[in-house]
């Protein structure tokens, strides 16, 4: 009985930390969808690419986790800016599927590049700490703890930036009405670039943190993408706190399903929840139906 309780608390706490890591990758998706109305299907693939770069930088170059994380997130901010400027900018006036198709192509390209460079061999990011932290009767995963805390800090920082900064106010105005924001003197082109860069940088950070807890394979991004979409659908586009809450919820459902039902049904349960939610929330996700005209 006591052992059951211990297992539950331990699993729940690890699930909680995993949820924070999920939130990082979902937050970027939620930002770009909420403000720019673009569902970045290459989002998780970019995160996976960052995770692989993290693996190379930590395992091969011997850099430490924090340095790698900062450098790679910086690089991916620039990559995001370039994607927005080169690929998406010219498609704003077009139908939504044009940008979706471009990002879909990008997703394929990234997956293949990852496959060519890092092969299908599982890659595990090496960390210098012991795998678990003994805390009385509980065993906590150190990678989850470190990854979770860094991502929590990152999410809080982005949230503060978006809530109180001048750029953040501009972005919220843009989310409500891009044309009106432009007329009122907001440089929406520049904001879109920064925003997309921020989204991709979050994907990179989240990807590296996920790389700490899962072995990397080139097709893993499809599962991450579905997780991120699931979290965005559960949390809505209200803001990062909701995304964080939704991510933790999803991770706990995942943990408890694995613990009490069966590990092989985790994906099935999550996907079915997602499809059910997409049906239920099909009009509520982007706010209202009119907004997506």
């Amino acid at each position, binding site marked *: 009985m006591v052992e059951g309780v211990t297992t539950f608390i331990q699993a729940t706490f690890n699930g909680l930390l995993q949820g924070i890591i999920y939130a990082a990758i979902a937050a970027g998706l939620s930002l770009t969808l909420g403000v720019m109305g673009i*569902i970045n*299907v290459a989002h998780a693939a970019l995160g996976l690419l960052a995770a692989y770069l993290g693996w190379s930088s930590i395992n091969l170059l011997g850099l430490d986790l924090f340095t790698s994380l900062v450098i790679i997130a910086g690089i991916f901010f620039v990559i995001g800016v370039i994607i927005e400027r080169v*690929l998406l900018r*010219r*498609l704003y*006036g077009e*139908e*939504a*599927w*044009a*940008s*979706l*198709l*471009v990002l*879909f*192509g*990008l*997703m*394929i*390209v990234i997956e*293949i*590049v990852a*496959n*060519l*460079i890092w*092969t299908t061999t599982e890659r595990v990011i090496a960390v210098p700490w012991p795998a678990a932290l003994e805390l009385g009767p509980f065993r906590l995963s150190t990678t989850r703890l470190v990854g979770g805390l860094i991502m929590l800090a990152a999410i809080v920082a982005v949230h503060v930036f978006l809530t109180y900064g001048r750029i953040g106010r501009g972005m919220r105005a843009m989310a409500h009405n891009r044309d009106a924001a432009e007329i009122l003197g907001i440089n929406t082109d520049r904001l879109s670039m920064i925003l997309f860069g921020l989204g991709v940088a979050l994907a990179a950070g989240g990807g590296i943190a996920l790389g700490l807890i899962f072995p990397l394979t080139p097709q893993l991004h*499809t*599962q991450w993408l*579905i997780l991120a*979409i699931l979290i965005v659908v559960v949390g809505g586009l209200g803001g990062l706190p909701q995304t964080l809450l939704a991510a933790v919820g999803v991770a706990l459902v995942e943990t408890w399903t694995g613990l009490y039902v069966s590990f*092989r*049904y985790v*994906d*099935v349960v999550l*996907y079915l929840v*997602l*499809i059910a939610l*997409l*049906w239920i929330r*099909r*009009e509520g996700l982007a706010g209202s*139906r009119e907004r*997506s*005209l």
Partner: protein
Amino acid sequence: MALGVLVVVGVLGGGLLISSRAILSTLTTLFMFMVLAQAWNILGGYGGYLNLGIGAFFGVGVYTVALLEHNFGTPLVVGVMAAAVTAALFALLIGPPTLRVRGVYFAIITLILGFLMQRLAFNLPFTEGAVGIFLSPLTSDANRTARIFYFVFVGLALVTTLAVRRMEGRRFGFALVAIREDEDAADSLGVKTTSVKVSSLVVGAVLAGICGALFAKWITFIDPDAAFPLNTSIDPVLMAFFGGAGTWLGPVLGAPLVVLLGEILRVSFGGLGIFGRTGIPAEVARLVFGLILMVVALGARRGLMGLVQPRKGTRSGV
């Protein structure tokens, strides 16, 4: 017209004369993908609703035939009909809720659906998971079997293309184009938009399901990777866009171009090492396809047909 007859005669004659099984197999794949591209084209090309998971319907067809034969020894003809029915039911299940909503929702749901079906095939108790299912070959003579499947897929491609061409000038085709160009206007002019969209999804799903059913019997071994490969979802989109989405000729031009390009890439990169690795031809072809998809989406989005028929009029968004 004369050119069309010439092409058909060439294709039929080729099927009789070609003795290399490898070439015949490539051509069979080509015609199978032509059917898939045409199936995608109805809702995706004419209707403008991006389906990124037509492979899910293909896989449903694959597993319907495989499971029926594996468990009950059902003959292929019955299996194909059953596959058409299951694919249609599947489309009816996901079509109405997703297609009632505008925008990119449908694309996202179909994308997820493709991933989901593969995970289900791995995890459900009755699909044999990663172990896979062996089917008996259609005939004992492998050459004869290869030729039969070639003609079956050629016939299917011909019938599908003619049907789509006929649809182009009919009420249904005009309704789809109206939905693509301006769904609100179409709706207000009395087009039953949801029912038109769902019907085209079902027709496309049935075609994909039939392709999958025949494919299962053709390759005789089925596992989740064989039934739900990413390329059955991507390549039809690429072919339709490459040739010209929303025209009956688009998939007819696009399918050979993409298959040909794939073969050229396979041959020319087959011996080369990239990033110090050799023997990775399939991935390189896919990489190039991904790049082409991006370019197509960015620029000449109406494909080769767009070069022939310039787009009429311009639209401005709100």
